[in-house]
């Protein structure tokens, strides 16, 4: 102890002559830091109500609630997060995980209330004083809690694949599939978009866990054509995927395919479980396409006796006859159909209605009849010269190609149309040309500009890689015929496809005319149903709507014994057809159950 120890403490008094360091007005002078994690904001324009914030919240602070004025639509659940500040801990995991970056945090932090129930609010909907705060925590660009980029699908090089009709894509390996499945946030926005309402998040979870058995089970709950869909589904689900807003959507189709790749036919058969006890009821189905077979599958599983009549020699409908092998190998179609057969569905091929058997006979001997005819006829452009024999319909050519019929592939071909069928035929022709002539000379003209092609972007890209010349915004004017031979197609530039009212009425720039050389012009602008098998009497009796058979929600026509489903009432799409098949089967089953009840 020294004198210093006695005196030195008095140094504290020097502060008497210094200004205090107190903040004079702490309530107003202290905005939160630019990164401050204060109260939540939510950009209503961006939010899609995916509920990922709710999933990650470890406090159970977030509820997803419907909000007045926000409609549920594809890709937007219409729900918005309501946050309970009686739970929140401001960890900002919800902000970090937000798929659209709509959820952010302001730098406001003062909220005092007497009523404890007031601390629940829907940011962006309930007006708060910090709604317009600009500072606050936003997820930094490089801060990622999950991968943004989709795992690339391995596929053959264009040079190789053009050589044959072998399948292009390899499918994911287990490792790849797990990584891709890992990106899914299981929000389920896709489920409503999928026509068949496949339980996408669940089977993706099965992939993640490597539990293919469970995945397969989930697939077969909603879709007996999973093998086919895994390859060629239009995957509308991916357009509503939450991951799409900041990164690539999950490759839902490829993951489905991955499950099917990992399982054997026996597994599929065992999962489906074989024939069921018979109910004694009989249903006839015309057309062994996806819609008809799905309905057959469902009804057979309910114990009804189902007979499917197919005009061609193999079942599968448009999946077989319309889709080229390099996209969908036939073995995959066969496997799916064999599984359907395993529940007791009787498929009779080469039976053409109206020729081999009459519709009336079916009406008399079955409890219900389902029309699932598909779209077998190609639409015509009706431009000058299109009656020429070398102006062909894409569907016809594809069918011939599938049947290995030689239709005389042209040295140079022009395809009209910008849909998937146009791509299919262009690429099929390209392969045939390569095989026969060693070089590809296919020109594809479409009304739409490249950004609005109806075809899958991947298809367009791959067609281009394979040497198909793709010309967008070209309206066909005339098939040029010289000396009785087709020599090409004249097109005009398209200014607009739709008029101001939004009706289909293309307008052309006539000054911009081009000639596309080719010895064959192929129309791929749409398909329609061959309804001639119905017969005049029935056609007369049925109610029609703009050329289509009118059906109720269950697919029942105005005739109580007759149902219709699939592409003929829905439009071309495998998974829609499957969905329709389910609906119709349900309707038919209900009818059967109703008639049984009185007993």
């Amino acid at each position, binding site marked *: 102890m020294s004198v210093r120890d006695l005196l030195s403490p008095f140094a504290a008094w020097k502060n008497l002559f210094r200004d*205090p*360091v*107190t*903040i004079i007005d*702490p*309530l107003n002078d*202290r905005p939160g830091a630019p990164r401050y994690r204060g*109260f939540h904001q939510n950009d209503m324009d961006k939010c899609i109500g995916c509920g990922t914030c709710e999933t990650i919240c*470890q*406090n*159970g*602070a977030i509820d997803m609630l419907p909000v007045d004025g926000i409609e549920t639509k594809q890709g937007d659940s219409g729900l918005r997060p309501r946050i*309970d*500040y*009686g*739970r*929140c*801990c*401001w960890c900002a995991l919800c902000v970090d995980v937000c798929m659209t970056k709509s959820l952010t945090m302001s730098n406001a*932090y*003062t*909220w*005092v*209330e*007497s009523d*404890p129930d007031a*601390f629940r609010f829907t940011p962006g909907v309930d007006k708060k004083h910090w709604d317009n705060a600009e500072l606050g925590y936003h997820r930094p660009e490089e801060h990622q809690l999950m991968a943004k980029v989709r795992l690339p699908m391995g596929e053959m090089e264009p040079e190789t694949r053009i050589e044959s009709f072998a399948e292009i894509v390899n499918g994911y390996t287990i490792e790849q599939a797990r990584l891709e499945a890992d990106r899914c946030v299981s929000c389920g926005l896709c489920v409503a978009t999928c026509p068949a309402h496949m339980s996408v998040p669940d089977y993706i979870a099965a992939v993640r866990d490597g539990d293919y058995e469970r995945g397969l089970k989930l697939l077969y709950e909603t879709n007996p054509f999973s093998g086919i869909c895994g390859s060629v589904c239009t995957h509308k689900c991916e357009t509503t995927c939450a991951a799409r807003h900041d990164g690539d959507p999950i490759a839902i189709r490829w993951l489905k395919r991955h499950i099917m790749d990992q399982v054997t036919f026996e597994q599929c058969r065992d999962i489906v479980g074989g024939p069921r006890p018979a109910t004694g009821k009989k249903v006839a189905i015309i057309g062994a396409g996806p819609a008809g077979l799905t309905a057959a599958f469902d009804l057979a599983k309910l114990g009804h006796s189902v007979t499917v009549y197919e005009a061609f020699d193999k079942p599968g409908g448009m999946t077989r006859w319309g889709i080229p092998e390099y996209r969908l190998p036939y073995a995959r179609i066969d496997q799916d159909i064999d599984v359907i057969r395993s529940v007791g569905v009787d498929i009779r091929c080469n039976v053409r209605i109206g020729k081999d058997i009459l519709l009336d006979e079916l009406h008399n001997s079955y409890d219900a009849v389902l029309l699932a005819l598909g779209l077998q006829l190609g639409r015509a452009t009706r431009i000058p010269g299109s009656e020429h024999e070398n102006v062909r319909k894409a569907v016809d050519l594809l069918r011939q190609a599938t049947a290995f019929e030689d239709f005389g592939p042209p040295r140079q071909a022009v395809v009209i149309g910008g849909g998937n069928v146009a791509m299919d035929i262009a690429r099929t022709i390209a392969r045939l040309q390569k095989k026969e002539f060693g070089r590809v000379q296919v020109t594809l003209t479409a009304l739409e500009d490249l950004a609005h092609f109806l075809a899958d972007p991947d298809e367009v890209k791959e067609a281009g890689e394979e040497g198909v010349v793709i010309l967008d915004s070209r309206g066909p004017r005339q098939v040029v015929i010289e000396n009785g031979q087709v020599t090409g197609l004249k097109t005009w530039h398209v200014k607009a496809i739709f008029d101001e009212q939004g009706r289909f009425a293309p307008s052309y720039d006539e000054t911009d005319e081009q000639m596309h050389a080719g010895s064959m012009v192929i129309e791929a602008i749409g398909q329609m149903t061959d309804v001639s098998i119905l017969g005049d009497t029935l056609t007369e009796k049925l109610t029609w709507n703009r050329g289509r058979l009118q059906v109720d929600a269950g697919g029942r026509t105005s005739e109580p014994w007759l149902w219709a489903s699939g592409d003929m009432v829905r439009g071309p799409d495998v998974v829609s057809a499957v969905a329709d098949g389910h609906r119709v089967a349900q309707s038919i089953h209900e009818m059967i159950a109703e008639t049984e009840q009185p007993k």
Partner: protein
Amino acid sequence: MKDELKIRVVKGPDGVEFEVEPLKDYYCEAAPTVMPAAYIKVVEDLFNWARSESIWILGFGTGCGAIEMRPLMTPRFDAYRFGVQWRPTPRQANLFVISGYLSTKTLKRAIRSYEQMQNPKYVIGLGSCTINGGMYWDSYNTIKRLDDYLPVDLYIAGCMPRPEALLAGFQDMKKLIRAGKAEGANLYAENFEWYKANQKRVIHDWDMPDYNW
């Protein structure tokens, strides 16, 4: 119940044996009653003004939020300027700041401290935990809603609320007091049975007197 809290016979220094009941405070056995405001309005207004300008906080840091009290007592925020001071004993405190979650063990002490405070007394609940359980919503050892056990006048959102938010809370508290709306103590007295029932439901080891203030 702990041994030392049981009724026992003690021998005094003069050799006389007598019975001691440790849980019993021999002078404070009255149940809380509703205390009316002063009859003359002007007097009550004056008192309310004084109460609002002289808030004595019980220095009982029940949870995390207590750490933000330190800045309030010190130069940066200096709540003393606003008539807010801290008292170490519940008898002299008017405001009980429940700083976050309460484990049942602390709840017991908090209730006892609250009951030892004098009417009028106020409670501020700090942060999510007092409102609806906060991040301990699934914990087996913390209460979820403070207002089941004590009458709460104000809640301040945050986890934890910053000192500035606390100051804002004190300002709102002052407004409530001045308006004569902070009658938590009377509310507690009115619904005493209900509060006690709630408290006893979660405090399994009830070794304290029902009345003690």
